[in-house]
């Protein structure tokens, strides 16, 4: 967000026009140090602003859902937290670490589940988990524990040793979540994780997120799924044209309110 520019941030029942320093994010993160924090974060590609002056804080045990249409800047935001992109201005922080300055250290606190969890097809789910967990710093986890984690993530026991080439998308997503669980990261970044999953798999996925939330994990999830955002998220932010145009806590709104607010912003 450009300096001095006002943003229109809504809460549950009324539309507020406030200065960026007074956003809901500030109040949410005031008591506890944020795990994920964006400070005036911007990313510009040639002539296109992908993310503009984003201020965002996600604390422990929070599930923050980023809503918005394609091209709104949700994935770019996640990639900025991952250090996949260099911010044009502003900064992204993980556990207080500036991602641009300490990319590897900040990643020790992050787990990431992309829209399509792609694994090594010739290896089994267990082998993939062992590899990515070790890469994430958990190289000493015994096979029993890894198998247990796959079970926690919902992967059927008979699939643990099968090659990933035989896995469905849902099974791969579960391995992705298992990698996140094994890493015991403080923050989880999810990019459209339930896209293409059947309702049952989506529900299982939401339950897993709840468990992670209960363990104190801060979750930032980009999604199109308003229903899931309302059900799973603790807070919801709506992005459009790279800007965070509305932010609200899910406890205080209904499904219909969220849908209405979302559509209002999409038709502005």
């Amino acid at each position, binding site marked *: 967000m450009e300096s001095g520019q006002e943003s229109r941030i809504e809460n549950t029942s009324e539309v507020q026009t406030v200065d960026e320093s007074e956003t809901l994010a500030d109040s949410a993160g005031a008591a506890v140090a944020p795990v994920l924090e964006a400070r005036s974060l911007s990313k510009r590609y040639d002539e296109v602003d992908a993310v503009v002056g984003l201020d965002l804080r996600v604390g422990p045990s929070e599930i923050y859902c980023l809503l918005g249409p394609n091209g709104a800047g949700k994935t770019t935001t996640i990639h900025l937290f991952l250090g996949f*992109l260099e911010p044009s201005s502003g900064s992204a922080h993980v556990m207080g670490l500036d991602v641009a300055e300490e990319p590897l250290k900040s990643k020790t606190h992050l787990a990431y589940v992309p829209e399509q969890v792609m694994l090594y097809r010739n290896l089994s789910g267990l082998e993939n988990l062992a590899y990515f967990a070790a890469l994430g710093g958990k190289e000493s986890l015994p096979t029993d524990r890894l198998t247990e984690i796959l079970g926690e993530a919902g992967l059927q026991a008979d699939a643990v040793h099968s090659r990933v080439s035989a896995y469905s998308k849902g099974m791969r997503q579960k391995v992705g979540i298992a990698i996140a669980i094994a890493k015991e990261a403080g923050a989880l970044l999810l990019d459209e994780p339930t896209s293409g999953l059947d309702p049952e798999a989506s529900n299982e996925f939401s339950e897993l997120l709840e468990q992670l939330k209960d363990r104190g994990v801060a979750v930032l999830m980009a999604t199109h799924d308003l229903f899931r955002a309302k059900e799973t998220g603790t807070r919801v932010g709506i992005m459009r044209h790279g800007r965070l145009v509305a932010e609200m806590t899910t406890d205080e709104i209904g499904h219909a309110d969220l849908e209405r607010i979302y559509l209002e912003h999409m038709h502005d």
Partner: protein
Amino acid sequence: MQTKTIKTILLNEWRLLAADRTLRIVLPLFIVLFAYALANGMAWVRFQEHTVQVVREGNVQRTEGLERELAAIKNGAEPSSPFRDPRNANVMGGRRGARSVALDPGPLTALAVGQSDLLPYYYDVSIYTNETTFLQNGEVENPLNLMVGRFDLAFVAIYLLPLLVLAMGFNVLSGEREQGTLALTLSQPVSARRFVTAKLAFRAMLVLAAAIGVSLIGILISGGFGSSGPLGRILLWCAALTVYALFWFALTAWVNSLGRSSSWNATVLVGAWLVLVVVLPAAINIAAGLLHPLPSRVEMITAQREASNDAVNRRSELLARYLEDHPELTGGDATDEPSRAALAWAATDAVNQRLEEVSERHRSGRDEQNELIRRYRFLSPALLVQEMLIDAAGTGDSRFARFQSQVRAYAGQWQSFFVPAILAGEQMSADVLPTLPAFNFVDESLGDVGQRATVPLSALIILVGLVGAGAWVGLGKVRGAG
């Protein structure tokens, strides 16, 4: 943390390669190629050793034949022919008593045949040895072998090893991106630079283990470890192979860092192989031939014939001139009627001088060609590594030039021994045979080889450094999977 990360990636590479059917086929195929190339090189060494043995046995047989005939003549027998009378110095020092000198195969010839099937490795030294002797190779060789070189380990290393490296590395990063695993990987605390380096390091270890392993087995089987000074040569061989392979691995890393597709990488890398390994060396050779053409062998033979005819017609005049030039050979009395042998020698010397002019042009043209190739070899890592490999094997130009130079000196000693006797019309006896000049080849020292290797090895290391730096910078820019 870094060591653990690298260990994790290496372990995973092992799992991936073990599960990959393509590489399970390609790697053994290359080991078979290595083994075949080694067998081919060893066959050549056996042939060369046999030839050298036959040549040396010929010396013994000729000497024994002369001893027998001289003893018989001493006991009253007549020589088989007045023209083959071994008592004549021009016969004993000529073809009947010629000494064959041979160069033993280089310590690692089984690995790199090099110039040993192109350049002569034995000569018959007599008073008639002249420059034409050094331009002829007594072996009849398959012209295709001479043109493209033998399929030996050096050939596999120079031409095919890069293709194995490219096959194992062209998609080291792009493949991860295309199959979608790069995003998950780079979301872990590992940089693209370390990830690619570890992956390529594992593949490099496999390739080098295969190449160096087969080389060492070859050296062991061919008895290279038993010859003099092999350790330094083996180290040079291994160092050249390693640096050359690293060049190609660095190139694959660089191309991968550009962020293009695997098919684009493959096209560019194969193009680079074609240019650096095939086109540039061929172009430099062609340029050397065009810019510094050598006199043809036909010209040499024609000059020899013309000089011979002329010399025969002017033998008396030539002898007088020769004795004027070499008064020390006349014993202070050049007034005696010259013998037939002396006249023949004078003619021979005149022919040799005429040939010297043509051979000098040949030598200088060849030197200029070599100089041009030496100057432009830095453009092609293949030329640099070829130079090192065949030099390490003892089959390079330098060792043959050294042999030829010592043979030339030995031929001079032989002539110095016999020509005064020819001019003085002295009779030879069996007592002379043990006193004849002997040829002892003084092989090049390891220091000589090391000194020659310094420049190409340094150049290759610099090339690896430059390409590696490009890859390092490029990979440093790879942050995400996009």
